[in-house]
């Protein structure tokens, strides 16, 4: 079933601020098995010039996955049929503990090919003052009936 192309260009209202916790970063870091000290040790992060521990490069998916959920819901996508196509992060600066981050999700592209549907979203993550932190592109593949 083709997805409604009229969603292209649609932007969703900013999400409520997400406060990045030191222990949430630690949980994510342990889940991916990373050991860089600046992820868990505030002193190591300060030595790199940050006010608190730094999050790993793919950590923003924690926020953007939730921010993109409304797109999946609104397009009527069955989540078990979704596989991840592409993913990209472009950083202005790393995410650090204590950040309060707001996400604005925009639907960039919807297309069909080879019996599958594709939807690309961009989530712009900024602080509560509006300063950009990271932009996150996600392309999902909605598998057609086998």
């Amino acid at each position, binding site marked *: 079933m083709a997805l409604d192309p009229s969603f292209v260009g649609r932007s969703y209202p900013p999400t409520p601020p997400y406060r990045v916790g030191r222990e949430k970063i630690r*949980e*994510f870091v*342990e*889940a*991916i*098995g*990373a*050991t*860089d*000290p*600046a*992820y868990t040790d505030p002193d*190591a*992060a300060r030595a*790199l010039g*940050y006010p608190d521990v*730094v999050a*790993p*490069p*793919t950590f923003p*998916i*924690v926020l953007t*996955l*939730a921010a993109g959920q409304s797109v999946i819901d609104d397009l009527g996508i069955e*989540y*078990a*049929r*979704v*596989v*991840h*196509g*592409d*993913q*990209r*992060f*472009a*950083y202005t600066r*790393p995410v650090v503990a204590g950040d309060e981050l707001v996400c604005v999700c925009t639907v960039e592209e919807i297309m069909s090919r080879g019996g599958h549907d594709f939807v690309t979203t961009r989530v712009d993550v900024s602080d509560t003052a509006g300063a950009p932190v990271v932009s996150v*592109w996600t392309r999902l593949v909605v*598998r057609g009936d*086998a």
Partner: protein
Amino acid sequence: MSEPQAWVEGQELAAQTYRVTRADLVRYAGASGDFNPIHWSDRIARSVGLPGVIAHGMFTMALAGRALTTWAGRADAVIEYGVRFTKPVVVPDDDTGAEVVVAGVVRSIIDGQAQVDLTVTSGGEKVLAQARARLRVAGGSAGSTGVP
């Protein structure tokens, strides 16, 4: 953590090997909030045409991200990072799991930033394509292009 690599164009970065078990997927699901059942239920994974439970693409991407910061020797090295997920990492329900191998080559160094091309495989097959990152590296080597 290993010593940071020397940053020279064409440099091959030491391949990093990571093991992925079902338990890792459960932990990652909880930490990331991605509870898609294809990452924990064989029944549901097969019902949508997959061979069985597959790793979260973002988990594989996170492992390759570990390689990036290991090579760079700093947690905040990644400026830009993108991948295409081409083949699922199938994770068997045993104690061994699957293996993910991350190799990299330095394509260019410009203004203290390195462009790295990644090759990420599992069971000898490429699982990511167009996997590239731009990294902040401590002082690109003298004579590299683009350094003013």
